[in-house]
């Protein structure tokens, strides 16, 4: 059942649809999760940069070449720029103010030290989901940390790692503490359990880390996974149902055709598949099948007729032998009576033998096993031989034999060609009128040896002409029996000629006579072995 076209279609359909849905879902999921991660990274990075850049003012790298002062020396009121948090209720206290041009104030760390620990806090968030920060000084000491980030490890040269995009963890470059970058460097990202952290190196060797739990994002992604799975399953189910209906639509006409064809081949070859949509592929398939049935039916009918005819022809002499022997044995008979019975039996036996021989020749020709022993010979010599054989019969019927023979060489089976000539001549004599004439002509036309047998007989009636080469067809049954004919002579002639790659045809005018024309390839023209005769 699973090997049927319908199931094959369905399984392939399911596999392809499933694969497409899976790829689509995976791609969608990846895109969404990446987008979420990069958004979070951007927020964290923004916060980290603000923290790392230190006191407000133009960043050091934006200053002119001559102004190399720490940022806090530039003064100006600090502003809250922690984008993530919005306005903080308690507000970040301003970093220490230094009057311009005044003596240097506190050490650079002090600015960070004085940052409120709630700098990044948001309102109304879970404690777990609150962003946190931690700021290390040049020597790795904690300058300031938010409320919940006291246990965050320092990303030192041994521990500092960054997570590449593909998730692999590579050691951090040994930059860091000893040679702090002069300004805010490139951010580094790391994943620590459910925590996403961004590390930024600020001026004066400080390191700022801002992190946040990704729990809620993970939960969102988990939800997305389930939704995608559900939607994918739904689409797959709909697709499979559609595919099942579609495959039924495709296979139903095939099934109908196959069932009809089975019924036809099993019972009645005369039935046909109804061709409703002739221009579709299935319509042409049905038409092809119908044509095949047509040929099969014709072939079967011919076979049945041939078998019936052969059986009839064989039974008749057999019943003659049987009945004569039976009658002769019913009582004691005189010697002449026995003799007559034996003669009749012998006659019938001979007839059976010639019929069996003829059937055997035809069967061999049909199977392509005529076993031609091809040799090179002159058709004229074969014709002379055949004429010698039929002369007594011609004299018996008072038929004149005329000839016009040229020397033509062919490569053929001499015995078969002799049989062909004899058959044609005997027919011409037998179906001739009393005192008629038979003319045998042998010549050459182009690359063919042409052999004509012309008679002055009754001719062949127009309705009989298509059936002349048919097996067991006799135009005149009584006359045929007189000649000892089986009705197979011309069929045999045709088989012989076809086996030699030749052709046989005739023209006939009822009442005037018939001409049989045989064309055989000349010697040297036959290159391929004789083809089997196909019917």
């Amino acid at each position: 059942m699973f090997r049927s076209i319908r199931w094959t279609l369905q399984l392939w359909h399911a596999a392809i649809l499933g694969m497409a849905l899976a790829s689509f879902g995976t791609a969608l999921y990846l895109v969404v999760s990446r987008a979420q991660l990069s958004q979070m990274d951007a927020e964290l990075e923004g916060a980290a940069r603000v923290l790392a850049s230190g006191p407000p003012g133009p960043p050091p790298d934006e200053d002119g070449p001559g102004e190399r002062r720490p940022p806090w020396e530039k003064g100006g009121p600090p502003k809250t720029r922690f984008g993530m948090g919005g306005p903080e209720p308690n507000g970040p206290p301003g970093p220490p103010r230094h009057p311009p041009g005044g003596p240097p104030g506190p050490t650079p760390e002090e600015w960070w030290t004085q940052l409120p620990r709630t700098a990044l806090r948001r309102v109304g968030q879970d404690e777990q989901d609150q962003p946190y920060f931690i700021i290390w000084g040049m020597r790795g000491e904690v300058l300031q940390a938010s409320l919940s980030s006291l246990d965050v490890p320092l990303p030192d040269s041994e521990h500092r790692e960054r997570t590449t995009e593909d998730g692999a963890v590579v050691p951090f470059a040994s930059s860091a503490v000893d040679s702090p970058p002069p300004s805010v460097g490139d951010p580094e990202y790391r994943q620590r359990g459910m925590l996403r952290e961004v590390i930024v190196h600020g001026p004066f060797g400080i390191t700022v880390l801002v992190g946040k739990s990704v729990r809620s994002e993970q939960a969102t992604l988990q939800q997305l996974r389930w939704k995608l799975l559900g939607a994918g399953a739904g689409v797959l189910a709909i697709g499979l149902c559609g595919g099942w209906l579609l495959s039924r639509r495709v296979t139903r006409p095939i099934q109908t055709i196959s069932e009809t064809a089975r019924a036809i081949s099993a019972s009645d070859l005369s039935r046909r598949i109804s061709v409703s949509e002739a221009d579709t592929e299935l319509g042409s398939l049905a038409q092809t099948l119908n044509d095949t049935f047509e040929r099969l039916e014709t072939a079967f009918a011919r076979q049945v007729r041939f078998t019936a005819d052969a059986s009839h022809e064989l039974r008749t002499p057999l019943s003659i032998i049987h009945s004569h022997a039976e009658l002769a044995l019913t009582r004691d008979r005189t010697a002449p009576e026995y003799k007559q019975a034996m003669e009749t039996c012998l006659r019938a036996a001979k007839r059976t033998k010639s019929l069996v021989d003829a059937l055997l020749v035809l069967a061999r020709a049909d199977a392509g096993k005529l076993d031609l022993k091809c040799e090179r010979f002159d058709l004229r010599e074969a014709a002379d031989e055949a004429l010698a054989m039929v002369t007594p019969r011609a004299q018996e019927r008072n038929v004149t034999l005329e000839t016009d023979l040229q020397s033509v060489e062919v490569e053929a089976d001499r015995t078969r060609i002799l049989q062909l000539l004899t058959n044609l001549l005997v027919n011409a004599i037998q179906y001739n009128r009393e005192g008629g004439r038979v003319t045998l002509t042998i010549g050459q036309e182009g690359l063919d040896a042409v052999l004509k047998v012309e008679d002055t007989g009754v001719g062949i009636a127009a309705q009989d002409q298509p059936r002349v080469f048919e097996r067991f067809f006799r135009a005149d049954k009584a006359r045929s029996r007189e000649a000892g004919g089986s009705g197979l002579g011309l069929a045999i002639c045709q088989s012989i000629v076809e086996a030699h790659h030749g052709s046989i045809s005739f023209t006939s005018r009822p009442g005037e006579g018939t001409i049989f024309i045989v064309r055989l390839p000349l010697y040297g023209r036959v290159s391929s072995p004789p083809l089997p005769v196909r019917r």
Partner: protein
Amino acid sequence: MRILVVEDEPDLLSVVAQSLREAGYAVDTAADGEDGLFKAQGGQYDALVLDLMLPQLDGWAVLKTLRSAGNSVPVLILTARDALPDRVRGLDCGADDYLTKPFELAELFARLRAIIRRSAGKPNSIAQIGDVQVDTIRKCVSKGGQTVCLTPREYALVEFLTLHRGELVTRSMLYDHLFDEDDDSLSNLMDVHVSNVRKKLGKDFIVTRRGQGYLLEGEMPADGPGKELDTSGGRADV
């Protein structure tokens, strides 16, 4: 009993005809369909043996023409065509029986006897007329348990009269059915046969209706004369 054999194989025609003659039938022959049809329409036959594959007019056509002309002579088809459609077609055309070649002569005879009996409405092969018993299979007649020796012609006469017992059988009917077309017996020979049979089977065995013909008045317990008259009504050609 007179039988027409239509067969185009001369050797087979001769053997069938000869064997039937040896079995005591009068036999006519025809070698093609047209001749066969002509003879069957003209002659008074008790049965026809018909081949199917005949020159000029095939057996089916002969049969159809005969039946459509109202001829009800029993016909046995004897042919080499043994295929089912041929047999069906033969029987449907009006044949009474179908026998395929090659055949046993004994079977041919038995089938002929059967269709002749059936068409005469006397299905029993042994007839009892008074103390005379006629066995149509063994072709012997006995009187009072004693076998009576009859010549083939005398037996044929008794058999024909027995088949048509209770019916008036005219002299021309006897001539038609007991002699074939080549027989040139003189008319008074029939009287000789009748008188010989009377000598052997009893004076009253055959009743003479002067100026009309002969009558066999055997009463049979199984089928009475009334029934016989009914069934003989269908045989208008006899």
